[in-house]
């Protein structure tokens, strides 16, 4: 054995050892780099937080001395840039963790800002509201279901629920119909005709509820008889009276609660606003209906109405449902238009406005919370539908 020169093994092992040393070196360099990243990331995170915090504190302190435009500018830069920098350092810190940990944590670093905001701004307060709805006006002691009993016993609430239901029955369906009519008609015009007519329907979509209320003010306005009418509807009404010699008196339209007529007038404003939304979606859905399916129906001798109702509509049903649900959710929590026009007078109140009045008029957190919980419960079917729909879509992906 001693004869055997032990030459080969070390020679063989040497490069191996070198490689290992190299790898070790690399790993230490890597882990050093990681450590640096982790430290720089964490320090950067803290420094950025401190700077952003100080900036906003300073803004609040010197609000009276700094011109508003400059304040706004500082706030915009600090807010947007600050968020970006925060995220940059957060990511650096996560990348600085050991590889395994880093891989596991990085999705949550990407999710953190979104989940944090969802948690603080939506989930926590919603749960808290449900909680408050079983407590007294100052949320100090439990009162069981008393708030709900009070709410359902209140005629103002029952009237609001009825109005909300009326809105739900009429507005989403009418919006889909209007959008469909415009989409179909515009599709048959010349290219320019289509552009202009679509644009005119599209404009109100950009207008706020408050702006819309200001606009429709000039339609529904009322002046006492004898004065010139400045509202278009009353001018037409009185003019019609003159024409047929009946002497019709001007009407304060938004006060006419017979058969919920004033509700219908307010709904007209919202349909006017949302028609453009329905039109855009339905128009693009109609345009993507394959031409062959229509030609096939034509060859089979179908007339236009049959083609529309049996070939086109089934193929755009998904979009119609989407529009319907979007408007439904909008109408369920309709607030602005009521708040700025009638503020619930003349039997036009809705739940969301009643809630607003409850917070400010009586300051009763319990009752206000109970009202929105009822609103929350009434969206649950839509919520379940959305989740199911999403699941189906995912399965088809």
């Amino acid at each position, binding site marked *: 054995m001693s004869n055997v020169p032990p030459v080969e093994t070390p020679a063989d092992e040497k490069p191996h050892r070198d490689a290992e040393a190299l790898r070790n070196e690399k790993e230490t360099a890597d882990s050093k780099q990681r450590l640096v990243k982790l430290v720089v990331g964490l320090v950067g995170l803290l420094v950025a937080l401190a700077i952003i915090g100080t900036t*906003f504190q300073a803004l609040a302190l010197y609000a009276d001395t700094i011109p508003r435009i400059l304040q706004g500018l500082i*706030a*915009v830069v600090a*807010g*947007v840039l600050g*968020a*970006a920098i925060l995220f940059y350092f957060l990511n650096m810190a996560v*990348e600085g963790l050991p590889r395994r940990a880093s891989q*596991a944590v990085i999705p949550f670093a*990407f999710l953190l*800002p*979104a*989940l944090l*905001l*969802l948690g*603080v*701004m939506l989930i926590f*307060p919603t749960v808290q*509201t449900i909680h408050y709805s079983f407590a007294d006006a100052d949320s100090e002691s439990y009162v069981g279901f008393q708030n709900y009993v009070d709410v359902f016993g209140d005629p103002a609430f029952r009237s609001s629920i009825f109005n909300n239901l009326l809105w739900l029955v009429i507005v989403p369906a009418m919006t889909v119909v209007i959008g469909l*009519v415009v989409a179909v008609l*515009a599709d048959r*015009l*010349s*290219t320019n005709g289509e552009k202009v*007519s679509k644009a*005119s*329907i*599209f*404009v*109100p*979509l*950009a*207008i*706020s509820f*408050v702006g819309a209320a*200001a606009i429709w003010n*000039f339609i529904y306005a009322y002046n006492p008889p004898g004065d*010139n*009418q*400045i*509202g*278009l509807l009353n001018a037409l009404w009185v003019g019609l009276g003159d024409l047929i010699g009946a002497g019709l008196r001007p009407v304060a339209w938004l006060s006419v609660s017979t058969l919920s007529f004033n509700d219908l007038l307010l709904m007209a404003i919202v349909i006017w606003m949302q028609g453009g939304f329905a039109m855009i*979606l339905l128009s693009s*859905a*109609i345009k993507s209906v394959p*031409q062959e399916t*229509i030609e096939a129906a034509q060859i089979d001798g179908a007339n236009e109405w049959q083609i529309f109702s049996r070939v086109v509509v089934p193929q755009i049903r998904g979009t119609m449902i989407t529009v319907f649900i*979007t408007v439904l959710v909008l109408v*369920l929590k309709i607030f*602005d238009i009521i*708040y*700025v026009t009638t503020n619930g007078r003349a039997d036009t109140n809705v739940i969301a406005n009643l809630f607003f009045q409850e*917070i400010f008029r009586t300051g009763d957190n319990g009752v*206000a919370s109970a009202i*929105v919980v009822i609103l*929350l419960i009434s*969206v649950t079917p839509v*919520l379940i539908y*959305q989740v199911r729909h*999403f699941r189906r879509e995912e399965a088809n992906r």
Partner: protein
Amino acid sequence: MSAKTEERGRTGWFPRIMMVLLALLWTIPSLGLLISSFRPRIALEQSGWWTAFFMPFGKEWTLDNYRTALLAEDMAGSFINSIVVAIPATVLPIMFAAFAAYAFTFMSFPGKDIIFVLIVALLVVPLQATFVPLLTLLGPEGLGINGQFLAVWLLHTGFGMPLAVYTIRNYMSTLPRDIIESAKIDGATHFQTFWRLIVPMSIPVLAAYAILQFVWVWNDLLIALLFLGAGDKSTVIVNLASLLGTQGQGAEVLTAGAFISMIVPLLVFFGLQRYFVRGLTAGAVKG
């Protein structure tokens, strides 16, 4: 249905007349406001706006309403406030939602499906359900930022998050996956892949959502009213709503104020219409 060349010749009078009627019906209300905003107060109170429309000469026209609205009613200040509110409230949710959408599309982690379903559910939760606790949380007994722009930015960012994540993820999941795989092989970190590959490829949906959110925030009344109030930080919409409340004295100022409040969203809508329509259809038709 869009075989234009073939159908144009056969377009009957019925669709044309119907469409003209509808377009008129849709335009007349806004036209009334626009004309009224250039009429002096007395004319406004004594005759309908259409009299000025049909007899435009010899009538008095004025810019006073705009002057009063901008200066005396401080619409100019509110205008700046609205911009200060709307820009961060548009950029922040998009940035955060894009990060989250990336994670939902290209990463795997425990609880992914449940969290996303939760976000889908949050899409329809009425915002009113959050207000009572949030007034406490942001108020003097909580964070003490109620009445500051920061509060409204945070609220709009949080409230906009479900739709933003949902829409952006829908779009991202149509991007080719192998590009991301090859970036990974080349040693790119997720952070790099996100900024250099995914964000540039997602510009259409980001732009579309930006328009939607911007106009939504600009036009919002409820949140601005509750969390900024009607003081010197009031947005154009809150200011306009208080003008509506004090009708009678200021009907002529209201008309000009309403137009001032509409200029920005209208410009945004028409300037970026193509992006907006594309994004809406991409997001909604699928969802």
